[in-house]
């Protein structure tokens, strides 16, 4: 656990980090970024908390199985969307042209649109849940391992 200044500041900074992570996740299909990058940013927020508050006090609120559920859910969303195209082929982008995220932007350089890309933004969300949960779990477990604490089943 670090000093009070650091803890107060990280309480504030975690919001900024999370908002930035969400921005990167949600705009993956129109600007550089995406699920992996945004998920890593969110996980870096967890790293900030672990450094500021110490791994034990984080572990009291954030158990490993919460993260496990998070990453399983993310991957199930991802593979579910892939199965969704099964009427044609696995991973077929079945939402292009449909009302949900189906808008196709004008070809060539353009300002970009939020509701385009078909399944891509949804897959971004699934992957980001997996990456955020997974990297946080690694950070938390390894931080606990330094103090020789083992994880409950």
């Amino acid at each position, binding site marked *: 656990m670090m000093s009070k200044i650091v803890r107060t500041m990280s309480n504030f900074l975690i919001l900024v980090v999370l908002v930035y992570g969400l921005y990167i996740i949600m705009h993956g*299909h129109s600007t550089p970024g995406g699920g992996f990058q945004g998920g890593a940013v969110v996980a870096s927020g967890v790293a900030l908390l672990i450094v500021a508050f110490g791994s034990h006090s984080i572990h009291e609120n954030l158990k490993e199985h919460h993260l496990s559920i998070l*990453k399983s859910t993310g991957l199930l969303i991802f593979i579910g969307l892939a199965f969704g195209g099964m009427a044609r082929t696995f991973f077929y982008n079945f939402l292009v042209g449909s009302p949900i995220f189906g*808008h196709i932007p004008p070809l060539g350089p353009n300002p970009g649109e939020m509701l*385009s890309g078909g399944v*891509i933004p949804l*897959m971004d969300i699934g992957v980001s849940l997996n990456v955020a949960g997974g990297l946080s779990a*690694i950070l938390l477990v*390894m931080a606990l391992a330094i103090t020789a604490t083992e994880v409950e089943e």
Partner: protein
Amino acid sequence: MRKIAIAVSLTVFIAFLIAAAFLIHPFGSPPSQMDDYIIENAQRETGANNAVTAVVFDYRGYDTLGEATILFTAVVGVVMLFRKERRG
């Protein structure tokens, strides 16, 4: 004896790497038949402005599934290694 073998094979390996660096296409002008298709058609086919994301989640989405699975595997592995084991 073993050290000499390692040194020789390492030298040969690095020599081949440097040879490859000279033989490869000049930096900045790669062949691009597969990528040109994506640059031209990614917007039309997927509706995503970002061609890299279009490749990651559409054209090579299956690789990305594998990649997400690898991260999942590694996390499950790491957490499994630090689990509480019943003694005896």
